[in-house]
């Protein structure tokens, strides 16, 4: 039963390789490329907008090239399945996910290098993939064992920010500095309106503000530096305490929505969407999440944490894209599909239909994310939380942070607690 299957797969792979090797490398375009087939595991469910966009592109790709694509709409739990599948030699030829999920297969050397995709021509556009996707985006990815970051071809961008209703007259003026932001919060407080909504149990979303404050006060890569110094000395830098104190200021200043420390997601997010608080710290997907909850006159705006002392205006970015496992049996047709999908008339549907930002600057983001796209293109970008392993966040950053966020400990105590957990982390991380 299994023998013939493997032989068949082997033959297919050989055919695919032959087809690919046979055609001149300049002719890497999909049209006229060799036939073949590949399997694709999607992080989307078949009825999600992204899935519909990708499905349509796959249909066209199959019709134009004769390549057969076997799709499984796995949904988000693909992250649970991909490891065992790779271990068992059942990996798909193509899969997609957020970069932090894909990166677990990268650091273990299980992801194929996609440089050839970046160097390939996007069919019908006369340009290479690398010319259409800003390299600064891919540069935010962690390096694979060979030092390259070209193991993911992004098709959707996620950013973060303080989101708000731009139609709200109280929020007409954008604060340019941290102090102005606090002033705005004070003004709102005077009107009995909380400045920031937050579901207190959420760690990642709430930490985002401190994440960016560390950058504003200390420059990009501060968290990574703290993380790498196993002694924990990084926590002692005065700038770190300074950022923590700004967080304390937010908490102690009474700017947070009442009951934020005693609610469960999505209670306070819903309150925010109903206009009961000005801002919400979150990822840019929040626009889609609350689209059915907000009123008809809601206009989504995004505010980046303003600079504290000039410069350091980095904006968070996180990528969702395609990856090819190293053990894939038919990597070549899968790679051809990736460059095919980057074609404008495919990719722009991610913006127009799936309502998300694409990595191509020439595709305008949907209206609700226009602010975010502008911020991404006009500022340097950085990876959220400096790509730290989530285990570190879970064990070191978040527990101490939540205590401070809930007003139980001071900024000094936060730094001390985090440092202690940091030392413990490295003791056992071996």
């Amino acid at each position, binding site marked *: *039963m*299994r023998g013939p*299957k493997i032989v068949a797969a082997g033959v297919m792979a050989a055919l695919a390789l032959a087809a690919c090797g046979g055609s001149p490398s300049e002719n890497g375009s999909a049209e006229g490329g060799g036939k073949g087939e590949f399997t694709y*595991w999607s992080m989307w*469910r*078949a*009825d*999600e*907008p*992204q899935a519909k966009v990708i499905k349509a592109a796959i249909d066209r790709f199959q019709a134009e090239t004769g390549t057969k694509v076997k799709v*499984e*709409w*796995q*949904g*988000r*739990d693909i992250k*649970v*399945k991909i490891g*065992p*599948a790779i*271990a*068992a*030699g*059942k990996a798909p030829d193509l899969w997609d996910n957020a970069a932090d999920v894909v990166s677990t297969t990268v650091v273990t050397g299980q992801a194929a290098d996609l440089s050839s995709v970046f160097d390939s021509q996007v069919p019908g556009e006369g340009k290479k993939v690398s010319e259409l996707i800003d390299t600064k985006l891919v540069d935010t990815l962690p390096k694979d064992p060979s030092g390259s970051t070209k193991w993911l071809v992004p098709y959707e961008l*996620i950013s973060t920010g303080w989101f708000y209703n731009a139609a709200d007259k109280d929020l007409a003026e954008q604060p340019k500095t941290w102090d102005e932001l606090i002033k705005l919060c004070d003004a709102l407080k005077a009107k009995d309106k909380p400045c920031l909504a937050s579901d207190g149990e959420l760690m990642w979303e709430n930490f985002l503000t401190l994440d960016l404050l560390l950058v504003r006060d200390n420059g990009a890569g501060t968290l990574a530096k703290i993380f790498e110094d196993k002694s924990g000395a990084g926590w002692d830098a005065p700038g770190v305490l300074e950022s923590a104190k700004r967080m304390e200021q937010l908490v102690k200043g009474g700017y947070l929505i009442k009951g934020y420390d005693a609610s469960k997601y*999505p209670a306070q997010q*819903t309150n925010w969407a*109903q206009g009961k608080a000005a801002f919400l710290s979150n990822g840019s*997907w929040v626009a*889609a*999440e*609350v*689209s*059915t*909850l907000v009123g008809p006159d809601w206009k989504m705006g995004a505010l980046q944490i303003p600079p504290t002392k000039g410069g350091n205006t980095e904006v968070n970015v996180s990528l*969702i894209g395609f990856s090819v496992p190293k053990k894939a049996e038919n990597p070549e047709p899968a790679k051809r599909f990736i460059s095919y999908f980057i074609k404008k008339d495919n990719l722009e549907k991610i913006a127009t239909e799936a309502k998300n930002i694409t990595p191509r600057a020439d595709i305008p983001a949907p209206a609700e994310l226009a602010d975010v796209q502008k911020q991404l293109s006009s500022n340097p970008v950085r990876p959220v939380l400096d790509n730290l392993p989530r285990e570190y966040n879970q064990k070191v950053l978040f527990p101490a942070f939540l205590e401070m966020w809930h007003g139980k400990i001071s900024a000094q105590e936060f730094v001390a607690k985090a440092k202690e957990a940091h030392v413990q982390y490295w003791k056992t991380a071996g």
Partner: protein
Amino acid sequence: MTISKKRSPLRVAGLAIVWLIVAADIALLIWIFLTSLRDTKDIFARPFALPTSAELGNYANAWGEGGFGAAALSSVLLAVVSSIAAVAISAPAAYMLARRRTRTSNSITMLFAMGLGVPGQVLLVPLFVAMASVGLVDTYTGLNLIYIGLALPFTVYLLTGFFAGVPLVLEEAAAIDGASGVRAFVRVILPVARGGLITAFLLHFIGSWNETLFAIAFMQSDDKVTLPVALVNFVKMQQFNGLDWGTMFAGMCIILAPMVALFAWMGSRIIQGMTVGIGK
């Protein structure tokens, strides 16, 4: 059955507590059902209100796009087959382990009991590697086998308890009548232990009906996912695309309905089986 006519205050309080818990359980069920008829915005505006209009669209969404319809079939298939097989394999073993108190028997009993404490997730990777090597990943056979294996410690342990309560005199009588051991087991013991068997079957049925971890890892094709996996998949869409809470609750109702129906019907059967089977 005689019911005590004395009504001490303590008893009244006890009754009140029982009915209070019963009422809370029923309220929960009703709330889940009512919420499944509402749309997301409405749910969050007033979580405990009645639906203004019945949103049957939630059910259509769940059944179709949510994939609950296709998943229902997989769930039925897996839960029925694995529960029957697990009880069928466990019953003879449990019977023998309950009857024979030799050193071998005791250590085997202990061995099964220890299996109860193993978190299922420990077995996940070894089982996946093993199943993949014999080509059983993404097949009903593979997942059924796993469910049977996972059920064994519990089922054997539970049934051992039930068989221990069956009077030995029954086999003695059967043996005197000249019935073989197998015959006595099938014709005499099993009917008496019917209540236990049905309980074991039901508990395992519920367990596999709601099992998520292995179903997620082992069933990869869209047409083979089970109901809880469909629910998890649906809920996980919340990340990046937001969640349609009304449809989610409709999905939960689809998962719950057969359970409630089954328990309403079989629940009294178990109890009847136990009381009648053993004779009063």
